[in-house]
């Protein structure tokens, strides 16, 4: 199994190719949308590239779930993710830092859960097992 550093290096290379960013921008904390400028279509391209580069299958919605809070109206109240919504996020994004997000759980911050580090953790789990 590759080490976390090895996975990170490959993820970094993948994102440089997919998003046209410099490798020093691709830090573990970098958010895909806010920091690296990813748009919705880039997520599919990233999944294609990760599958190829890591020789894994990434089922639809497993790494980048869509409509995270749409399943139940109680997940969001006044533009803020509720406790029930946070539980849903933890469930659907087990590799994201939902704990930090809970400090300011505005709906518009949900996209910040998608970080380089999240991808690395996801792949660690996937490759480990």
């Amino acid at each position: 199994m590759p080490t976390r550093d090895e996975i990170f290096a490959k993820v970094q290379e993948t994102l440089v190719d997919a998003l046209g960013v410099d490798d020093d921008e691709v830090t573990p904390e970098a958010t895909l949308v806010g920091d690296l400028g990813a748009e919705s279509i880039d997520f599919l391209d990233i999944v294609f590239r990760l599958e190829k580069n890591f020789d894994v299958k990434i089922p639809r919605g497993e790494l980048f779930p869509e409509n995270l809070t749409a399943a139940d109206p109680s997940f969001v109240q006044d533009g803020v993710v509720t406790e029930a919504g946070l539980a849903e996020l933890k469930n659907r994004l087990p590799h994201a830092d939902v704990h930090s997000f809970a400090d300011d759980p505005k709906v518009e911050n949900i996209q910040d859960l998608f970080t380089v580090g999240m991808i690395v953790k996801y792949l660690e789990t996937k490759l480990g097992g």
Partner: protein
Amino acid sequence: MFDVQCSLLFNLHVMRWIWIDRFLEFESGSHARAVKNVTLAEDHLHDHFPGFPVMPASLMIEGMAQTGGILLGEVNQFRHIVILAKVPKVVFHSLVRPGDSLIYTAKLLDARDEGGSVECTAHVGERLVAEADIVFVHLDQNDPQLGRIDQKNFVFSSGLMSVFDISAHEQ
């Protein structure tokens, strides 16, 4: 990076947006080769450029996307609307002039529910003219995003699919 966000691949009823003439080879789920004959009868060549007609690079991307888009669409029996979403890589090596026959080759790299990707080349004879990676997304008729796209027709409707018929008659 050349990123064509939600550009429409097949907009056929507004104008004849057909940038391949015939398939030379079509291996379902694998690869396809199509030919585009470049001729001075095409108006756009007289503007691009006056006195120096060359095939616009953007239309070569469109030709590669149509070759690859049909290859992807056929995998799912054209159930999905296929939209050119992103061109992560494109390199142009040389010019294409009237009288040239462009051969587009598309190799299917990924095909899944959400979309797919292809690797394409364009040649004139042995000469490599262009190469591109192209990503497509699928939309379905009931997709809420469909309404956000201000185009009426971008499916594999009769216009572009006639390329298939022409190819079949020639075989």
